[in-house]
């Protein structure tokens, strides 16, 4: 595991505490009965980093997030958040965090702005602070004109933004986001990403889980690829792609009948060939050159596409499976 390599990365801001980890997990495990949800994982997150957990559904990402969030006790291993053990100091740990859960749990019987006020009260924050803060956060979440609306009148993207605004009411330095954009349309996702970038610029540590590789590439400084409760790889999106994939990928479609049988005829082109039910992927430094070689062999795919490698390719390489089934 490239844990040491990751921990020696340069500090991200000028703070002298930047080298200290805000989150540290060592040999962390969680089992539910016979099911091992998280299997002996270790990672460290320095302040100000955007750290991602990438993996398919059921990989153990949400369970890890719940343990970091101080709402689920670990089965074994060590875990500290801001130097505190969440199993011992639950309220103290949670007071440091902002949490955006996978499923929105806004209070739909309260109005939009009231959701923020009520949530701020859980941190003992006085109304004199909360009233202007709620207005600022509504502006940040582009929901100012919805302040007096009932929550159930909001679209999915608006609810998600409200949940993020709610998580910021206590000005957390660590924000946990569990699948923040699942179920949102592309435009809503981009608005949300923009808001998260702004937080990152402010030095907020972002911990996010996702099964969207574009999201991980966009937002994460560093990530761990998780599958079946274990860490498969760790690094920045670019370094993972460099390490586990080629610069470019040639995607060929020969029709569902021939995709599986054509592999033998392509041997020798590119560095590696991956045959999927709907397409064949040829990993090569130069995709166009690889395509020329394919044509030179007298093979004529129905469609061809040269693209840069993505985290999807990294995941495919590591697990032999596609990320989003």
């Amino acid at each position: 595991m490239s844990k040491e390599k990751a921990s020696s990365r340069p500090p991200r801001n000028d703070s002298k505490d930047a080298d200290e980890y805000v989150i540290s997990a060592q040999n962390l495990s969680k089992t539910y009965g016979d099911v091992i949800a998280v299997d002996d994982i270790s990672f460290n997150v320095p302040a100000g980093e955007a750290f991602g957990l990438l993996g398919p559904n059921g990989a153990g990402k949400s369970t890890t997030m719940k343990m970091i969030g101080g709402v689920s006790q670990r089965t074994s291993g060590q875990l500290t958040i801001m130097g505190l053990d969440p199993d011992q100091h639950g309220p103290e740990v949670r007071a440091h965090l902002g949490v955006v859960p996978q499923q929105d749990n806004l209070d739909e019987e309260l109005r939009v702005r009231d959701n923020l006020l009520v949530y701020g009260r859980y941190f003992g924050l006085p109304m004199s602070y909360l009233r202007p803060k709620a207005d600022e956060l509504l502006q940040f979440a582009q929901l100012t004109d919805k302040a007096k609306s009932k929550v159930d009148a909001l679209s999915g993207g608006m609810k998600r933004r409200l949940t993020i605004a709610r998580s910021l009411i206590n000005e957390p330095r660590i924000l946990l986001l569990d699948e923040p954009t699942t179920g949102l349309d592309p435009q809503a996702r981009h608005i949300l990403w923009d808001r998260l970038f702004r937080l990152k610029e402010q030095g907020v540590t972002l911990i996010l889980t996702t099964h969207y590789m574009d999201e991980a590439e966009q937002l994460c400084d560093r990530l761990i690829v998780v599958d079946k409760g274990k860490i498969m790889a760790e690094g920045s999106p670019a370094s993972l792609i460099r390490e586990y994939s080629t610069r470019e990928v040639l995607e060929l479609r020969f029709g569902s009948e021939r995709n599986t049988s054509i592999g033998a005829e392509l041997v020798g082109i590119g560095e590696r060939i991956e045959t999927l039910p709907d397409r064949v992927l040829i990993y090569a430094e130069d995709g166009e050159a690889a395509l020329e070689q394919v044509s030179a062999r007298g093979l004529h795919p129905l469609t061809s596409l040269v693209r840069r490698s993505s985290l999807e390719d990294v995941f495919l390489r590591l697990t032999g499976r596609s990320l989003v089934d």
Partner: protein
Amino acid sequence: MTEPQAATVSGGGGAGPVTLRRAHSPEISAARARRWGAFYYMEQVLRVMKGYSWTIVMYGVGQPVAYLFAMGVGLATLVDANSTSAFGGVSYLVFIAPALLVSASVMTAANEFTFPVMDGFKWRRIYYGPHASPLTPSQIASGHAMAVTLRFVVQSALYFVVVALFGASPSGWGWVSVLVATLAGLSFGLPLMAYSASIKEDKGQFAMVMRFIVMPLFLFSGTFFPLDTLPLVVRWIGWISPIWHGTELGRVFSYGYEEAPLLTIVHIVFLISLAAVGWVLTKRQFEKRMAS
């Protein structure tokens, strides 16, 4: 309170820089939540209740007016013409008023401690919002129960005012029945809250509770006629019923109903014990379900 300091950071959808004020430190948040967390969650439940405050007022005022007219005035003319001796020498109106007060509280408990609890854990998962904050599961349970307790008090007080206006509470101690009704509500409601917190799937259990527990308790708890007029085969329902214990206690205060002093103590101990057991089970259930 923390003095807000201005710190300018960029934010807002292209609307220019926003002045963000400083929240107090996480350490202060945690310390306050440890101390006052249950009250913070109570505040949330009360805000939601504000949305249906009209229902609460109707329960507190509309229902007693309707019942007291129908039973205490309409039916009472027949009953009282027959004899008042069966009701300890008081009018039928005076006899049923404490029972209606207690029953209203128990029925409210049956509403507030069933569906909203299921909503908190399952449907809209409302409990999991505060669960991610410094609040603990036990504080969330406490906050919910405290808010409902407040509703019992307010509703029973309104109810009592109407009862008093009908002249149905002759004793100067009648107001104590507001507290009795509140206690009866908790005595029935807290064990029910523990049960609701244990339900993973809604298969109509709450409708069963209403039909096969709340209704029989309402009818066979000495509400409309003294319990000892019932045959022994059903009289036991009253003995285990918070409505009966609450009603008898209410009668002692509202018109000086004479019963053995020991029995009065039994009523109080029974109601408090049931509430206490319900409370312990509720907290345990909340902690177990939310810590998994």
